[in-house]
């Protein structure tokens, strides 16, 4: 994903209705942290960038009220298990809802523990709530929604 000269990862595969455990995510993107390009870009990418596999799980939810610590825990546990199996170093959980999240939900996402980036996007108001860890901040900085 490249946007405005800021780069988070190069996603090369996408799958609709991705099944993970007993959950179905609307879209799952996978890729890596090394960019492809012409000769010099490839050399630079080979020597400078880490070679991590990454994944981003996107799910539409009916309302942000469904988000609770158990809701996030279930999804993040499945994501972590798969990350361990497939050596996915960076993982994002991207939730899309129609309504504005409550202060409690926002706090839950922002203060989320773990390395995974968690983002909640409200496509009506175009607001974004994100986990204040490295991956959450990085994705927030790169997205132009």
């Amino acid at each position, binding site marked *: 994903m490249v946007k405005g000269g800021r780069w988070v990862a190069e996603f*090369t*595969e*996408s*799958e*609709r*209705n991705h099944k993970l455990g007993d959950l179905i995510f609307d879209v799952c993107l996978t890729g890596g942290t090394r960019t*492809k390009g012409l000769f010099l870009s490839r050399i630079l990418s080979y020597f400078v960038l880490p070679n991590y596999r990454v994944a981003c799980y996107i799910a539409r939810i009916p309302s942000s009220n469904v988000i609770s610590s158990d809701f996030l825990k279930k999804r993040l546990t499945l994501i972590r298990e798969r990350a361990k199996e497939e050596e996915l170093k960076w993982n994002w959980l991207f939730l899309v809802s129609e309504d504005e999240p409550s202060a409690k939900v926002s706090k839950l996402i922002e203060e989320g523990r773990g390395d995974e980036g968690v983002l909640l996007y409200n496509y009506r108001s175009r607001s974004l709530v994100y986990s204040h860890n490295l991956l959450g901040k990085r994705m927030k900085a790169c997205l132009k929604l």
Partner: protein
Amino acid sequence: MTEKVSPIRFFEIFKLFVVFLAIQMGATLVMPVWFYDIIRPYFLFVAVATSILLAYIVYIRTQHLELSYDDTGFSLKRGKTVETHRWKKFQKVLLVRTDGDFLVRLQDGESIDLPVSKLKLDPFSFRMKTLGFVEKNR
């Protein structure tokens, strides 16, 4: 109803044409001068004509793609090789971006790539179409 897609990729033919023309041009460097003097008036015309013909023949025999599909399965012909599969055999449909092309990858143990960019299909809508076939036949 079976749908068939088999676009002619003119750029591939052009690339082969350039290769055959370069080979014929290169051949003049090792020809005896007396022989070159005889063929010189016709050389360019003959070289261009044979390069076009050879490029077209090699393209059709090795690189030309033809995809035919219906509700039950698909058949991908690459040059003279034909692969036929049924949608129900696959579980996953992925849209994959390689260096310059999009592929629709069908997976279930083995994986089959449908080169949608080379077939000049819209990768996003064809992925949805494929996903529909796979889910319907599951």
